[in-house]
């Protein structure tokens, strides 16, 4: 088996002293090179789980290790610079050009100018945007899908081993979303990185994930390959998810 990239050991999180656990004593291991999708409805704790990995949230209990290193022993700023992070709202900085946005982390790490500029062009090509055309534009001049491609390029800038994606395609229309999903698979396949992808769309989760983690009420219901989950749903929640997706399929077939 390959290296363990991310390891959770009995990790819990609650937002107030008296409240319920948002993430409830979760233990898991994710191996290098996996594409893990986390599927759950809102409030299931999937985003909280993700944000504890780059220390935007701190767990109340338990330990998280990246490649065997306990992340509480590392400066959060350093942890985050090693991890690519993409959010649903994209979060491109409106006062910076596309090239400046993509170059943020390399600049923080004080790369030299020519290295940054080569890397920016490389990344723009990787996400399917012509560097000459896009470098000097501002984010407001791009469509939503193009913006999220830049968000992806920015997160990949320093070639991080781990990528965290928090519903990155949640606000993008269906056709563009399919394109972006395919590109993301292509990028993942070419780079051998560990991807963690949060979504509430069951089709997206099962299409992208080499393994799918299904969460409900702060717990992991099932964490397995898509085909195993479909063959042996672990509990009623997972069964009902698959059932609802099948229902939708039947609805489409009915229209045919």
């Amino acid at each position, binding site marked *: 088996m390959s290296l363990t990239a991310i390891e959770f050991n009995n990790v819990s999180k609650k937002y107030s002293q008296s409240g319920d656990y948002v993430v409830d004593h979760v233990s898991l291991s994710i191996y290098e090179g996996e594409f893990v999708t986390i599927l759950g409805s809102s409030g299931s704790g999937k985003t909280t789980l993700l944000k504890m990995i780059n220390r*935007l949230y701190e767990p109340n209990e338990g330990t998280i290790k990246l490649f065997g290193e306990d992340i509480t022993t590392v400066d959060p*700023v*350093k942890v985050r610079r090693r991890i690519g992070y993409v959010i649903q709202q*994209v979060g491109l900085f409106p006062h910076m050009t596309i090239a400046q946005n993509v170059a*943020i*982390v390399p600049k923080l790490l004080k790369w030299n100018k020519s290295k940054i500029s080569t890397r920016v062009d490389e990344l723009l090509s990787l996400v399917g945007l012509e560097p000459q055309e896009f470098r000097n534009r501002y984010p407001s001049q791009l469509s939503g899908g193009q913006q999220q491609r830049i968000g992806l390029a920015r997160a990949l800038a320093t070639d991080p081993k781990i990528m965290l994606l928090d519903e990155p395609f949640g606000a993008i229309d269906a056709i563009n979303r399919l394109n972006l999903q395919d590109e993301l698979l292509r990028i993942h396949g070419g780079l051998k990185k560990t991807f963690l992808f949060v979504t509430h769309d069951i089709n997206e989760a099962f299409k992208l994930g080499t393994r799918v983690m299904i969460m409900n009420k702060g717990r992991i219901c099932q964490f397995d390959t898509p085909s195993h989950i479909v063959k042996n749903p672990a509990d009623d929640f997972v069964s009902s998810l698959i059932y609802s997706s099948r229902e939708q399929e039947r609805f489409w077939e009915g229209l045919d």
Partner: protein
Amino acid sequence: MSVNLWMQISDYFFNNSNDYWVSVKAHMEISFYALLLSALIGITCGHLCVKHKQYERWIVSLFQVLRIVPSLAVLLLLIPIMGTGTGPAMVALVLLAIPPILMNTVAGLEAVPPFLLEAAYGAGMSDRQVLWKVKFPLAAPIMLTGIKTAAIEIIASATLAAKIGAGGLGGIIFTGLGLNRMDLLLVGGISVAMLSVAAGLSFDLTDRFLFKYKFVRK
């Protein structure tokens, strides 16, 4: 009458052009330093207000109250403490100019959307880098609007500074009032108005130049 007035004005410029430009320069200097000082205080306090919410009410109300005291009253009140000259004039102008800068700094910093801060922290920026690379640049256009308002108020009110011997275009106006000379009133008044307009325009140009991203074609 009006021809006569024009004659008087051109006579004034012919005989006193030196004094005139000295006054203009003094006026601009007082205004510039007052603006610099109030921007320094206003932006620092604005940043503190956003960083430490519990002080916001106190800081904002303090400067609002000080702002209510008429500038002329401030000048006269300060005479026993600071005497006359540029010092008390500066205090009065700074007090006048802080509130718009302070309020707009607070508004600008608070208008930065939380997801941009999340993206900044997620990319691995430290608190200081988030402040200088994201928060201030994004708040800057609103802050600049506050500074523009302050500049126009300062230039108009710096006229009063002449009352306590700080010089500036106010001197020409007060002389005109004293001698009942319309030409001097016009020269002083129009000059102050022109300075105000010029300041406003140059801030608009600065805005266009510094924040190109707001004006790009979609």
